[in-house]
């Protein structure tokens, strides 16, 4: 190989390396905006879901903490006061007229007041709330066990998911109400509760009064605040954007274990 050839090869290689790095950087944004590539990337999170369901025992418990670990203030994130007249009327009366509706694939649809919810088997737990953004806060929650509530409502055999309909609109014009969904494995987990107390006080409005979901083995966006209605379904593809939740419809994973 002559020196000249050598130099040409080196020049070509240098150009290739430079071109490849620029291409990678510019290409990543374009790939993110394509319709097909995010679906390929989504295989990563789908694999995570399958692996975690495979290796984690069904009743594996999220860590619980002693009282000194409590966060001095439990941070409010997202909505801190729903822009919803119906909700504000309920809140102004201390939620005395609030009823949680339970319907869908159940033998016994229900409408439960807060007083009635407090008669259900409850659980109190000091747990860590992990936001998808990266922060964590520790709070003490008390609430009705979702499993006990669903047993009372008597699920039909084809019941697969619990959908939570909330009072907080996500759009400025008051539309696009928050919603979420979980499967029955999570719904019947002992730490899955509909919380009405935070740090021994009734749940504040900024943290989701009068009722919010606690789903301790997933990220914060799964834990719907301002829960008004539960619907038991066999499929959520016809609800709103079809991905099983407000943030899921914006591209976040339905399974938020990571």
């Amino acid at each position, binding site marked *: 190989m002559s020196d000249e050839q050598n130099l040409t090869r*080196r020049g070509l*290689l240098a150009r290739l390396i430079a071109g490849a790095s620029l291409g*990678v*950087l510019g290409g*990543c*944004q374009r790939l*993110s*905006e394509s319709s097909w590539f*995010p679906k*390929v*990337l*989504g*295989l*990563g*999170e789908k*694999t*995570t879901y399958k692996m*975690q369901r495979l*290796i*984690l025992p069904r009743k*594996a*418990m*999220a*860590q*619980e*903490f002693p009282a000194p*670990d409590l*966060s*001095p*203030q*439990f*941070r409010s994130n997202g909505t801190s006061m729903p822009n919803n007249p119906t909700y504000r009327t309920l809140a102004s009366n201390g939620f005395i007229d609030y009823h949680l509706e339970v319907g869908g694939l159940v033998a016994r649809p229900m409408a439960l007041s807060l007083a009635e919810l407090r008669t259900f088997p409850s659980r109190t737990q000091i747990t*860590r709330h*992990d*936001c*998808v*953004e*990266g*922060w*964590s*806060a*520790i709070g003490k929650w008390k609430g009705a066990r979702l499993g006990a509530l669903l047993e009372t409502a008597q699920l039909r055999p084809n019941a697969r998911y619990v959908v939570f309909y909330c009072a907080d609109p996500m759009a400025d014009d008051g539309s696009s109400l928050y919603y979420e969904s979980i499967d029955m494995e999570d719904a019947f987990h002992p730490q899955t509760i509909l919380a009405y107390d935070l740090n021994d006080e009734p749940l504040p409005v900024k943290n989701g009064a009068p009722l919010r979901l606690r789903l*301790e*083995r*997933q*990220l914060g966006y799964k834990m719907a605040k301002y829960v008004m209605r539960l619907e038991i379904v066999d499929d959520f593809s016809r609800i709103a954007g079809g991905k099983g939740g407000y*943030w899921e419809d*914006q*591209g*976040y*994973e339905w399974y938020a*274990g*990571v």
Partner: protein
Amino acid sequence: MPNCEATTEQDKDQAEDTVKKLKRAVARYPYYRHPLPIRIMHWCNALFLFILLLSGLNIFNAHPALYWGKSSYNGNPPLVVLRADENDEGELSGVTRIFGHDFTTTGLLGASKDTSGELAERGFPSWLTIPDDQWLAMARRWHFFFAWLLVINGLAFVTYSIASRHLQHDLLPTGHDLRSIGRSFIDHLHFRHPTGKAARYYNVLQKLTYLVVIFFLLPLMILMGLGMSPAMDSLHPGWVDIFFGRQSVRTIHFVVAWTLVLFVAVHLFEVLISGVWNNIRSMITGYYKIDGEPKHE
């Protein structure tokens, strides 16, 4: 004729030089240093780590602060915060707060130009993140997809290295290696690199660095990634407290990421000063040119 004589002397010197150079050129022989699987896994690893770093910085930007402990809100201030301050004229400035000390880092950290050219509040600048825009859901997709590829590549590397005895032959330091650490250290400081037969093998500092990266930093990185998962934390409740709690785990993940960047920087520097094209060629074709004649060894 003194002039003529001088010319002859010069010619003689030049001729000798040329002969020496030719001899050297002739006496450089290609040595097959990196087998194909190692080359493939090396470049995969480089690409995966690059994407993981940049998508990770986009994820970090969703909450550009680091804490120590079980939660972010435990009464102690954050260790690090990247933020933007706005003055009375509405101008933004980027501020990096480290252990309570503020540094102005406008344009790079805290506030930098977004893709439309406007100064905006963001932790790391858009040219250091995947995707360019602040887009947490998409950054997570990139990050977790390439995290799986990194894990698969890493497992393949360890399996191959043990089975092919690459680990035992090339990476584990010998007794002689360990006794010459001091000399290797001084050689590195003087930018002296092994030549001849010694250039066939990694030097002892190189071996130890690779071992630390492969068997300590990368596994720690992955473990700290898993530690941030609320589901994985339930595998054995409280295991993240071995690493001082979930927010410490997140901080360690971040620090190890930049330690790997430091490793790559030193790695590239050494590649650059010890025969850049020879090194790059050897990691593409497998062949590294070594001074000397193979039959004389």
